């Protein structure tokens, strides 16, 4: 596990602009560390930690974020919709709630094909209020689909506090309405998230169906770089920053690795990230190429 922790901690150092997940890395990183490459993951507009955790190349992630030809979508998708099918990361989804039926549908496919893998949906506390979340969880529970519902509860849906958008403070309780287990974990403790997901994965592979994991964390940065702020309480931000997942995992590591080792891992991570940004930023922008006749799109703008 020391290895794993190092891995997570390293990934945790990554930074993505736009919808930052600073202070929430533990959820995405800890969860993906419990999966295999063949497992599928769908995530949200805030997926950076998940991308890195699922083994995507930081350089190509950053390239997509900056709309470069070398990005995972060749610059067509953008920061909210990164995907790498070869890693089972398909993909980011910026329609709130969209990642939930997405993973559920993959789990249905897995069940029909009798495959030995699982699908995991990462979504937020805001997404949990969408109707499609209900429909998906009911079907997952009904058919015992091999899917893991990882609810990243960061207390906000954009600017709205959860107490203003959810009738109940704790969302894992809803699992009972779908005949699946619901657990709550400390979202800033990568190890706790890792263990919860590992357990849910084993359960899904045994054919016992889905699990709802509510990982509690907090969004210490604004919703996105366009956020003008003003709706979060400073004391909350400070309280949570003191529990930054990196500090938590560093503490955890301290028991198992010596300071030098940790410093090395961190330095290494920093370097990877810096390199990724440098490389990506010097990559070319894409050019428009007309669609091939076999493509489902046409080059018409309406009319002739």
């Amino acid at each position, binding site marked *: 596990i020391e290895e794993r922790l190092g891995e997570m901690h390293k990934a945790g150092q990554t930074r993505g602009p736009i919808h930052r997940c600073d202070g929430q890395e533990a959820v995405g990183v800890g969860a993906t560390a419990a999966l295999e490459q063949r497992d599928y993951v769908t995530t949200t507009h805030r997926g950076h930690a998940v991308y890195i955790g699922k083994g995507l190349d930081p350089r190509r992630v950053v390239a997509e974020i900056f709309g470069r030809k070398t990005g995972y979508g060749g610059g067509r998708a953008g920061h909210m919709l990164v*995907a790498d*099918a070869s890693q089972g990361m398909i993909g980011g989804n910026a329609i709130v709630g969209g990642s939930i039926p*997405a993973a559920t549908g993959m789990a249905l496919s897995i069940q029909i094909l009798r495959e030995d893998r699982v699908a995991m949906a990462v979504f937020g506390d805001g997404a949990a209020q969408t109707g499609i979340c209900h429909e998906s969880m009911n079907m997952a529970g009904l058919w015992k689909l091999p899917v893991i519902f990882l609810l990243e509860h960061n207390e906000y849906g954009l600017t709205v506090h959860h107490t203003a958008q959810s009738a109940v403070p704790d969302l894992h309780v809803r699992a009972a309405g779908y005949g699946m287990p619901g657990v709550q974990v400390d979202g800033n403790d990568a190890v706790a998230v890792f263990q919860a997901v590992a357990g849910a994965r084993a359960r899904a592979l045994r054919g016992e169906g889905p699990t709802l994991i509510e990982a509690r964390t907090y969004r210490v940065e604004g919703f996105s770089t366009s956020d003008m702020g003003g709706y979060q309480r400073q004391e909350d931000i400070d309280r949570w920053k003191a529990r930054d997942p990196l500090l938590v995992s560093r503490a955890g590591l301290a028991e198992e690795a010596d300071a030098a080792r940790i410093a090395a891992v961190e330095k290494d991570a920093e370097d990877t990230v810096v390199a990724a940004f440098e490389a990506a930023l010097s990559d070319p922008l894409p050019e428009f190429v007309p669609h091939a006749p076999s493509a489902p799109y046409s080059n018409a703008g309406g009319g002739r």
Partner: protein
Amino acid sequence: MAMMRYAEALNAALREEMERDPTVFVFGEDIATYGGVFKVTAGLAEAFGDRVRDTPISEQALTAMAVTAAMTGTKPVLEIMYADFMPLTLDALINQASIYNYIWDGQVTMPFVLRTQGGGGVGTGAQHAKSLDSLVAHIPGIKVVAPVTPADAKGLLLAAIRDPHPVVVLEHKLLYNTRGEVPDDQGPIEIGRARTVREGSDVSIFATSRMVLEAEKAADALAGDGISAEVIDLRTLRPLDLGAIAASVAKTNHAVVVNEDWGFCGYAAELSATIMDHAFDDLDAPVERVAALDMPIPYSQPLEEVVIPNADRIAAAARRALA
């Protein structure tokens, strides 16, 4: 060559594909135990077990699930009981299915089929009699077919299931019991090809789904007045068979377009505009649009009759075009 009901032809296509390809599965409301409210999936559950599933009433998630199941190795065929419920599927079609093949640079394809049925004429009322063709035909990346004959029903459904991209199949509640010849070896029919139902020289009537049958009746009536109408069944709503459309108008110089959905900002408008785009110089008169009146579909028969397009309105439109 066998005489078959439209519903039977669809059933045969599903059965053949499921036998041929173990990754094909069928799901939807009331389609397994009951065999579908229009019996299109009758008997499949017995033959294919859990590859044929009754589902909860959850059109929104079902469609989104079809999209991603199709990305991950299976070929889902989803039945949406009434076209009136298509609005519930549009987020999955417009914000999900439409975009991935492009934005992920070809990393994924989505070979799924969404079957539904629309149309009025039997007093099912404002929430169960609409033809929302226009909403679906507007979406890039999604093909739309609307077979009228049993043979086309089988051939186009086979082609839809084998297509690597999403295909919506628009059926019609009044077609399921119609009968027609279906070649024993009926294979896939190329998506994107119109069918000339009858040749004519004075006016071209382009119709979709059940309106093709009304167009034929109209053509008979017009023939009585010595007007020779060409009737063309578009079969595929997206992508359009532009060649067939232009060729027919070049011959007749007059066009009527017929679609059972509402006309305003509807599929009939696309046909009308397309004809102008590709055959303006051949047109001796404006293209006539025939579509449902701009209002909800009423329940009571004498009212519904006025709102749904029929042979009389088509014939009248042809006469206006020729006037």
